[in-house]
């Protein structure tokens, strides 16, 4: 057993797939950042709001006014450098840090795919993605290698496998499988799609999409691993992600996933891709590749493996942390994020905050639009950690305005997956007295229903 493991870590493979992955990943990231900018979202999400929702423990990560653009520019340039393989190690570290910083600035914009990108970027810091077909090797042929340890490419496959498989596991619940929720809400609203609009009204379509979506997520990593099913699997990947792109506002994620799964293909395919890119950019392909000869890349210090081993143990365990919380995960969302629960539920909410002087009993309600953007208000109203943070912000705001003995109460309602709305947090709890922590929030009211499954 042990020797088998040791043997595995000594195995080598061609560097081409990792190089292609680096090029495409860097390119897609640069494109994503351009798109983000062109849509005006930097201004809208990070400059205009008066208040930002922080992740627990990362309260110090904030937009820095107009300088936020500089972070974004740095991130975009780093992505390009990654694509080029120019000063790669520095570029991928800068990309990881800047991208993650942007991601952490406001959790209103939390998307699983941003987290996915942070994970991949972190992983790539430790991988020799620049030893082949890169500016680094062009400038210094001694850095060029044709063979790299097999586990380096496998680690990306493992990461992708975790994303899909865990997303599939998350779908194994009664709402998704037996009520076709939330697709029963989402799909009928796509009535204006050409050809598909009417089909989207059919219940059998909702159930088919639910079940095939779950099966797809669970099976696709394995179908991609085996040579005989690989092309079929890739066709499914393309169809599935194009479908999600058509149906849902999830931006670049589908394209990034499609491009990422190419890593499962073997070297011959990636050589063709490199030849194609070379032609496109008029690079002398044979010269680029000849640099590498048949040398094998070897890690100098062996810190990469232990770090990545810990990383993957965390990846495998972290999504299960919700089991440590007593109540329904979809309701309380304790342990919901960073767990590959993608497009899994529909929640709508409404929260109104009351500022009360505990001495005099004087009280008034807050107009949320004075402080939050519509998008922030929407996200805040269904997630308890947002409600708590916002309550503290309000309390401190009104204390600074001269109000005394401030207590903050929330009256809130949430509807989950088409159920009728019900009260969400305890309206009699002074939220100023509650602190954010990893402990279960006992001021969230009971869900009064059960969702079975994972």
């Amino acid at each position, binding site marked *: 057993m042990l020797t088998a493991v040791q043997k595995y870590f000594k195995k080598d493979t061609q560097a081409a797939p990792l190089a292609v992955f680096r090029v495409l990943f860097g390119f897609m990231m640069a494109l994503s950042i351009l798109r983000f900018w062109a849509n005006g979202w930097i201004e809208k999400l990070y400059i205009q709001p008066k208040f930002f929702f922080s992740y627990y423990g990362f309260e110090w990560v904030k937009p820095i006014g107009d300088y936020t653009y500089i972070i974004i520019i740095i991130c975009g340039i780093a992505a390009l450098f990654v694509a080029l393989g120019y000063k790669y190690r520095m570029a991928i570290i800068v990309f990881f840090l800047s991208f993650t910083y942007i991601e952490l600035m406001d959790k209103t914009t939390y998307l699983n795919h941003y987290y996915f990108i942070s994970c991949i970027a972190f992983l790539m810091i430790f991988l020799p993605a620049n030893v082949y077909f890169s500016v680094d090797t062009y400038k210094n042929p001694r850095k060029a290698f044709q063979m790299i340890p097999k586990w380096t490419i496998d680690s990306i496959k493992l990461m992708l496998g975790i994303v899909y498989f865990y997303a599939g596991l998350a779908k194994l619940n009664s709402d998704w499988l037996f009520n076709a929720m939330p697709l029963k*809400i989402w799909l009928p609203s796509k009535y204006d799609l050409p050809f598909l609009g009417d089909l989207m009204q059919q219940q059998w379509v909702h159930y088919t999409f639910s079940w095939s979506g779950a099966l797809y997520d669970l099976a696709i990593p394995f179908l991609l691993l085996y040579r005989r099913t690989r092309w079929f699997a890739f066709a499914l990947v393309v169809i599935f992600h194009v479908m999600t792109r058509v149906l849902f506002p*999830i931006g670049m994620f589908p394209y990034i996933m499609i491009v990422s799964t190419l890593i499962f293909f073997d070297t011959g395919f990636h050589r063709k891709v490199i030849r194609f890119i070379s032609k496109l950019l008029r690079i002398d392909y044979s010269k680029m590749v000849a640099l590498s000869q048949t040398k094998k890349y070897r890690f100098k210090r062996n810190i990469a493996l232990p770090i990545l081993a810990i990383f993957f143990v965390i990846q495998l365990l972290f999504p299960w942390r919700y089991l440590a919380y007593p109540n329904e995960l979809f309701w309380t969302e304790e342990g919901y994020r960073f767990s590959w629960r993608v497009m899994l539920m529909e929640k709508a909410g409404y929260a109104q905050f009351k500022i009360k002087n505990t001495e005099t009993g004087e009280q*008034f309600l807050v107009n949320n639009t004075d402080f939050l953007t519509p998008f922030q208000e929407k996200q805040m109203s269904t997630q308890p950690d947002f409600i708590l943070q916002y309550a503290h912000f309000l309390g401190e705001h009104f204390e600074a305005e001269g109000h005394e003995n401030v207590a903050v109460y929330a009256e809130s309602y949430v509807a989950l997956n*088409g159920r009728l*709305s019900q009260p969400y947090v305890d309206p009699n709890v002074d939220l100023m007295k509650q602190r954010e922590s990893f402990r279960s929030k006992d001021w969230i009211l009971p869900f009064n229903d059960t969702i079975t499954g994972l």
Partner: protein
Amino acid sequence: MAIIAVAITACSSDNDGPTETNDNFDRGAMLANWADNIIIPAYTSFNSKVVEMEAATAAFNAAPTVENLQSLRAAWKVAYVSFQNVSMFEVGKAEDIRFRNRLNVYPTKVAQIEDFIASGNYDFDLPSTIDKQGFPAMDYMLNGLAENDAEIVTFYTTNSNAVGYKNYLSTLSQTIKSLSNEVLTSWTGGYRDTFVANTSSSASGAVDKLTNDYIFYFEKALRAGKVGIPAGIFSNGTLPQNVEAFYKKDISKELLLEAIDASVDFFNGKSFNGTSNGESFKTYLDYLNTIKNGENLSALINDQFTVAKNKANELNANFVEQIETDNSKMLASYDELQRLVVLFKVDMVQAFDVTIDYVDADGD
């Protein structure tokens, strides 16, 4: 695998699918019902009331008597009540010119109105003047200048700046008329077709837009503006001076009830000039519920409308008196309206899957 294959073939090749069946909801028909049977008739009716108010204003300015004041006041009241039927439709031209803000921002700023009258220098197109024009400003000009009608009339007769008062009153009335006309002609002149054709499912689609407008109106203008703010919900202490029609005083309740009725009728798709119901939020919710098999949301909303209306009916016609004698009734009325806001903003929005904004979001 078989299921995936079925799904794929089903979604990639749907040319012979059940395209013209009745099992889809026709949003175009809903938009047409809104435009043809509710919105345009409501604006047409409002516009005719405003024309009459303008004529009464001209008559009063020509002969400022107590009698003419009273007939102008009556015309003003009829137009103000009628306005409650169009206030919620802040789309198209109305949105461009910020119709509701031009016509009904209250409390009106009396001191600045007096400054305007004294200087004769004002431009109602400026956003800074929204709280010195519209129905609330006319309220002050017709009801708030003095204690009784004879004294009010003196502002337009013997006052040293009677011309200034007349001009201000006339400009107020004419501005309302021209804005109303602008919105109506936009609807009848082609916007109707644009609106009805815009069936797209996006934040800019007509269904999503008017849904957002309706809810925004109900939450901010109706629930908060007419009841919550004066009842002191959003402040330390009550704000009786913030009631709608503060100077006329005894019509605040009538305006509220009219606004609730208009909201109910729009929800149910009831035609403005008749009793027949067409496609509406109600029928849309009922259709979606055939898919979802959940609670009968449209019935819950209609029931709550009834409760809210009954509570509003218990109020004094004069909200200032109501607030000063027994504010708890105002608060109770607010609570029932608030329940409707929750049903709209949480349950109805979820059922429609209305888009609030264009940003990437994966639905969690």
